[in-house]
């Protein structure tokens, strides 16, 4: 017995069929237990296109299946409306499809009782604008979209309400058989990892693609062959109806709209393992070719991810792929000599209820229960009351109440209660899919109940010891795909049950982390939208801790596992917009929050003082600065000289060609009212850190400078601290980072320009920002290396210069430290930060604690936005904001002598404000490196823009440079053409700091990459799958990460022979190749150094 209660039937498999059987048996009053090796619905029941078949697809080939489909379709619409979107379906025959098939098909549909109506073509195109004009005939059928996650969870909830029991993350490891009858099952998991024997009279094997392996546990052979189907999820709903291609069933002919996305599939590839869900990029591209027939602009739409599921095809005759039947089978093992067991497999999602019914009929007959199946008669879950929906309507934004109700089922009430009690729980944890914190918490508690890990207390008792601490590399069933069960030979058919040892059995699932974010994702759709978890991962990881979950030894694992799972679906599509999103992800999680880098064991600027007193290290710093000074000024002089000679030589020739070019460019577009003269000495394109610094330096040298930008640069959302070099080859740089340049590859921008350039550029920036009112702190030292500053992920990040609010000295000096957050400010969880810091040797010996400040009373206004760090920073710029901090902080900080804060001490963030607050509070305040939109980055951008204005540079916002005019090896002008008008920017020289893949400075397509303005080819492997490593985080190298323009020591782009392509164009920042800003933590340092250099050359 599991807990003393009777179990008569054990259901193996928590997919649709298993969940349906659990509900079915519960409704018949038969005590049953469902065991699932992973989370509910983690197999094919969530890995399909989500089509509720009308049967039309099968009408020609398999009329019986078609009839089943249409009948089940009607039943499911009736009993589970919350899981189904009644969007209707179309069958579209294009001109290239066989017309003869159309006639057979309409006839067959009618014979099966499927309502098929032809639609006027014009009407069809009006309704679905993305549809191909090549459509020949369009029919309407009662297809619908069905949400697999929801359907399974609602069935399980219904079963549990009626006394059924469910354990997720519990894997059946053996089936006990005696005298030709099932006696019970062995299973491991139950939230603790323990193995238990569960006596039962009947076993229903509903393990889907794992059914063969499961049957083998009882010594039965079930020929189930896994068949992989590939699916693509698109970012937006370009089609509002299910669209099938009217032809004999083949690859890539079904589109299903699902909430915010469209799922397109599928393929049919026999595979060996049921968990083989890896996607080949080439297969995805082939699928797109097919899809373009129905939707010609398919490649223009953004694909969020590719995923695959394995169909359990029943193939006694060894047929495979599309030849194998899609029908389900029920194998009553009594017929082959084993009483009390049946396997149900094959089939499709649409008929899961029928499959469950049939297998439950067998079980009931065997158990002598003659209650008939009632699953078709009653709703799975009752609709929420009108009163509850009214309350929910006030809480969930933008019509999200209906969404939340459908997602949560009974959990809705809990979420509504929580949000009413704590208004800040209405905040959107996931903005792309509109998931509130209240929903998130309701889902956490449900997931916990199912994995039998019902409360934080019990978790904390069991958790800390075993898995993660000893074997951090151990695969987690929760996050990757579940591993196939390993049959335990010799177990079945034995006599008396003996407990299995739970240790050392590799095939057993480890006890899962209390709740994985993927469990929550499946329940809420968190992380399944546009940003694919970029913004919600940190929030959600923090929220699980704030919700009382005990931290794991490594809290970052929650976050990394989630993002790796998301990455698994993105990796096959790493080009264009998906790759931009990934670059943003790496910018956030690697460059800013350093969740990937190894944390230094020892060394670093502020650990090294163990035996020293503070003044000494300060002295060392001063000495160091003094020592470096002379060389730098020498460099500066020589650069100035170099630039002068160059500009002396150049002008005449430029002017000469310019006139010619002027004449040549006439007639290209309307040229009225456009600037034409060679207006500038230097035109800088791009307003990120590199562009701003380049323009600043050029203008400072007296060059007439224009800065042209399209969109704000990444500086505005970046961390705002300047890192030089934190890691080389995955190893932290512990000493002088400038000396570590020698460990870099020869084409690294640092190596091209040399350490002296970097040192001088840092000084340049310090001077410029100080003059603009934002003095940056020299956090790292040449003697002790980088300073390691705490981040919002609880890690330490290597930096060289930091904002005035991030003084590492304060941290070093503090004996006790409090991490302070604000209620409802989702991007900063003090408990999450605390967990990270506690693991870090730097903080050994310090007293650490965490606290939340109450949200200032006027946040959030009714129906308003969530509170961001930027909102609070703006609030703290006001008198009342500072009063709020002075009032609330002392109580929260207690006796601590330093407080670690989100970066929110004012948008101005001046040193004076910071010092004044510290003085008033009598406590050191240290800001943390946070995720975008980080205020620290905005401060830096604003300071540099101020400096630029003062330097007299012209700034052109919102100008997209999309053309260039070159003569020989010179660029004459850059141009922006928009709305038929073309604007030329002429200059002697140009600095291109348009950014990398994220900034659109580098354009990528499958197997190729090029610079965006001049179309300079960028070396890229042709094989798309080699662009990235197997995992996003960790030490794998990503080829895409260092893709960029190949330049010489003057930052001029060069051809294969090393010859400069354009003498007067200099590249700076992430447009350059040869370095990985995210892994090295060198992004701002390279931007600064190359920007400074280019601004000096141009």
């Amino acid at each position: 017995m599991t807990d003393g209660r009777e179990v008569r039937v054990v259901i193996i498999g928590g997919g649709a069929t298993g969940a349906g059987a659990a509900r079915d048996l519960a409704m018949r009053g038969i005590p049953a237990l469902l065991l699932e090796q992973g989370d509910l619905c983690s197999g094919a029941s969530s890995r399909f296109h989500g089509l509720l078949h009308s049967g039309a697809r099968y009408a020609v080939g398999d009329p019986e299946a078609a009839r089943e489909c249409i009948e089940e379709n009607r039943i499911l619409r009736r009993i589970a409306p919350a899981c189904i979107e009644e969007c209707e379906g179309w069958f579209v025959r294009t001109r290239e499809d066989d017309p003869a098939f159309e006639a057979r098909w309409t006839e067959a549909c009618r014979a099966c009782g499927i309502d098929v109506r032809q639609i006027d073509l014009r009407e069809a195109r009006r309704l679905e604008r993305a549809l191909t004009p090549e459509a020949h005939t369009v029919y309407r059928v009662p297809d619908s979209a069905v949400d697999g996650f929801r359907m399974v969870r609602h069935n399980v909830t219904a079963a549990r309400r009626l006394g059924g029991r469910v354990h997720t993350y519990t894997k059946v490891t053996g089936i006990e058989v005696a005298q030709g009858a099932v006696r019970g099952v062995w299973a491991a998991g139950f939230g603790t990892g323990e193995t238990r024997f569960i006596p039962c009279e009947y076993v229903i094997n509903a393990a889907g693609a794992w059914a063969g392996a499961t049957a083998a546990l009882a010594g039965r052979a079930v020929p189930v062959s896994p068949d992989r189907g590939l699916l693509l999820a698109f970012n937006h709903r370009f089609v509002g109806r299910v669209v099938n291609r009217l032809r004999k069933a083949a690859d890539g002919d079904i589109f299903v709209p699902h909430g915010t996305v469209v799922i397109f599939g599928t393929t049919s590839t026999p595979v060996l393992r049921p968990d083989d869900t890896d996607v080949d990029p080439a297969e995805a591209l082939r699928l797109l070719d097919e899809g373009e027939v129905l939707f010609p602009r398919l490649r223009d739409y953004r694909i969020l991810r590719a995923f695959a599921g394995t169909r359990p095809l029943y193939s006694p005759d060894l047929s495979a792929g599309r030849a194998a039947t899609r029908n389900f089978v029920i194998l009553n093992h009594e017929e082959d000599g084993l009483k009390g067991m049946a396997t149900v497999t094959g089939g499709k999602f649409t008929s899961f209820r029928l499959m469950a019914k049939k297998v439950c009929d067998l079980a009931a007959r065997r158990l002598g229960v003659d209650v008939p199946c009632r699953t078709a008669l009653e709703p799975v879950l009752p609709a929420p009351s009108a009163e509850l929906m009214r309350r929910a309507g006030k809480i969930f934004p933008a019509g999200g109440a209906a969404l939340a109700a459908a997602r949560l089922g009974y959990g809705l009430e809990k979420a509504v209660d929580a949000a009413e009690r704590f208004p800040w729980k209405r905040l959107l944890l996931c903005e792309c899919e509109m998931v509130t914190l209240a929903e998130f918490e309701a889902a956490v508690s449900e997931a916990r109940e199912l994995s039998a890990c019902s409360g934080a207390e019990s978790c904390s008792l069991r958790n800390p010891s075993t898995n993660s601490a000893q074997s951090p590399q151990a695969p987690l069933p929760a996050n990757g795909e579940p591993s196939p069960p390993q049959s335990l030979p010799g177990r079945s058919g034995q006599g008396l049950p003996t407990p299995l040892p739970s240790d050392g059995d590799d095939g057993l699932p480890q006890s899962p982390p209390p709740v994985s974010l993927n469990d929550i994702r499946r329940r809420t759709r968190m992380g399944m939208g546009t940003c694919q978890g970029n913004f919600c991962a940190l929030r959600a990881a923090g929220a699980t801790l704030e919700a009382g979950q005990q931290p794991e030894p490594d809290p970052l694992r929650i976050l990394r596992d989630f993002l790796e799972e998301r990455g698994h679906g993105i990796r096959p599509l790493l080009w264009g917009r998906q790759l931009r999103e990934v670059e943003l992800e790496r910018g956030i999680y690697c460059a800013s929050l350093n969740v990937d880098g190894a944390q230094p064991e020892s060394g670093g600027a502020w650990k090294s003082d163990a035996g020293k007193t503070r003044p000494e290290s300060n002295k060392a710093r001063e000495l160091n600065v003094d020592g470096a000074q002379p060389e730098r000024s020498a460099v500066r002089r020589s650069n100035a000289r170099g630039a002068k000679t160059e500009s002396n030589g150049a002008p005449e020739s430029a002017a000469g060609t310019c006139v010619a070019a002027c004449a040549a460019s006439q007639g290209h577009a309307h040229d009225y009212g456009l600037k034409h003269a060679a207006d500038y000495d230097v035109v800088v394109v791009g307003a990120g850190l590199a562009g701003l610094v380049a323009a600043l330096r050029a203008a400072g040298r007296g060059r007439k400078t224009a800065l042209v930008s399209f969109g704000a640069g990444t500086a505005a959302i970046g961390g705002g601290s300047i890192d030089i070099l934190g890691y080389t080859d995955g190893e932290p740089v512990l000493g002088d980072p400038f000396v570590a340049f020698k460990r870099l590859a020869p084409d690294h921008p640092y190596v091209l320009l040399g350490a002296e350039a970097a040192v001088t550029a840092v000084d340049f920036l310090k001077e410029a920002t100080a003059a603009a009112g934002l003095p940056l702190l020299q956090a790292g030292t040449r003697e002790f290396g980088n300073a390691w500053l705490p981040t919002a992920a609880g890690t330490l990040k290597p930096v060289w210069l930091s904002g005035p609010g991030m003084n590492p000295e304060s941290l070093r000096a503090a004996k006790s430290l409090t991490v302070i957050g604000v209620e409802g400010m989702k991007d900063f969880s003090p408990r999450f930060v605390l967990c990270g810091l506690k693991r870090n040797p730097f903080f050994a010996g310090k007293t650490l604690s965490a606290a939340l400040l109450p949200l200032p009373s006027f946040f959030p206004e009714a129906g308003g936005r969530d509170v961001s760090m930027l909102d609070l920073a703006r609030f703290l710029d006001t008198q009342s904001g500072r009063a709020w901090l002075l009032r609330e902080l002392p109580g929260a900080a207690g006796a601590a002598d330093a407080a670690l804060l989100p970066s929110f001490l004012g948008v101005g963030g001046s040193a004076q404000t910071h010092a004044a607050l510290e003085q008033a509070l009598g406590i050191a305040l240290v800001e943390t490196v946070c995720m975008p939109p980080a205020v620290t980055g905005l401060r830096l951008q604003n300071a540099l823009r101020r400096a630029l204005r003062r330097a007299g540079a012209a700034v052109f916002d919102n100008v997209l440079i999309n053309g260039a005019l070159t003569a020989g090896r010179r660029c004459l002008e850059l141009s922006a053409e928009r709305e038929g008008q073309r604007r030329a920017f002429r200059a002697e020289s140009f600095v291109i700091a348009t950014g990398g893949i994220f900034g659109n400075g580098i354009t990528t397509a499958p197997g190729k990459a090029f610079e965006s303005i001049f179309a300079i080819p960028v070396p890229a492997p042709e094989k798309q799958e080699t662009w990235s490593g197997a995992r996003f985080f960790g030490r794998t190298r990503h080829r895409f990460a260092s893709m960029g323009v190949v330049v010489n020591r003057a930052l001029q782009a060069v051809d294969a022979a090393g010859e400069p392509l354009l003498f007067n164009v200099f590249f700076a920042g992430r447009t350059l190749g040869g370095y990985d800003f995210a892994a090295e933590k060198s992004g701002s340092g390279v931007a600064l150094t190359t920007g400074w250099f280019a601004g000096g050359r141009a």
Partner: protein
Amino acid sequence: MLQSNSGYAVSPHHRYNPDDCTACAVCTVHCPVAEATSAFRGPKQTGPAYERFRLAGFGDDDSITYCSNCKNCDISCPSGVPVAVFNMLARAAYRDKRGTVLRDLLIGHAGDIGRALRRVPACVLNFGMQNSLTRRLLDRIGLDRRAPLPAFAPLAERDRLRQGSAAAAAPGRPSRAAARRGKVALFPGCFVNYYEPRVGSAVIGLLEKAGYNVIVPESFVCCGLPMITGGLMSAALKRARTNSRELARLTRLGIPVVTPCPSCALMLRREYRDLFPEEEGLADNSAGVHEACAFFSGLQDRREFSLADARPVRATLAYHAPCHLRALGLGRPGIELLQRIPGLRIEDMDAGCCGMSGSYELKKGHYDIGMRIGAALFEAVDKSGAKIAVSECGTCRVQIAHGAGCAAAHPLTLLAECLGVTGA
């Protein structure tokens, strides 16, 4: 010689779907309304994020009424997402569902009202509009009584503007060089038409000085922007069609169109095509439309327009760049021109949106938000010590006068004055 034009560009295919958005939140960082009130969920959320839900039948949110269409989201977006267009289309749908607001009708059709009242003397109009009873009445229908309403210009000025160069025969005006460069059409825009025809006259004068003969086509109507912000899409579309027809005619004749209003320029050039993508031919001739300062700046660069004889002026001006001018991507042509006037010192305020955003601040519930947004600009103008503020946008000027309490002028009226062009 190599002409490359291969790069990443704003693809017309993606304009109306949210696929280019990476959710990076740069737009929310730069949104002045989001800064001023947390009642607005921010452009990313109401724009591309909700768009995905709107396509699925959800995403209806009151928050959409807060967007001021200032376009700082578009300007800051690194991915070329037309965020404000999403917002305006969504707001129109929102208004369609809930019914149009009388206030929005009134503001939206202010141009038509001005046109209908064009024979009425200014003193009558201004008394009619500005007296406390009317303001209280207007307040009741949603026009905040504290908000500044522009005053109608004298009848004679309004009349003269309509005649363009044809008014050249008016007594007391210097004779001009023959129109050696052909014709230019002036699109004054409603603000200039009814409240500040002097600006239009100055532009006419300057164009004539540059050798153009200026016509002011009667068939041009309001650009439609006030309707767009009020959610009156079909009314706006009607204006868009009318203006596009006229634009097409002028383009066939080779006559460029110049407007002193950056918002009108933005509408005619870009917004018609963004807002009404299905409408054929609306934007075919957008290339012929020019913002006036940029037009003169271009003429000057090509030496077709000279500022050499400008009278030196010793003064400091506080320059405010209207958001829609920045959205046009033209830089600061107004500054470029004024800088050529000897003695003139121009300080670029660079203090963000003024808060008026066309008619945004007039609307009840938005006044305080508008004034909070404008606070930084008012302070900057104050600090600069300038007696005169300059800005290309009429409603920005109203707001600066209201908030910073200093006179505000169009750069071209100053330029005309310095060049001794008295205007039409």
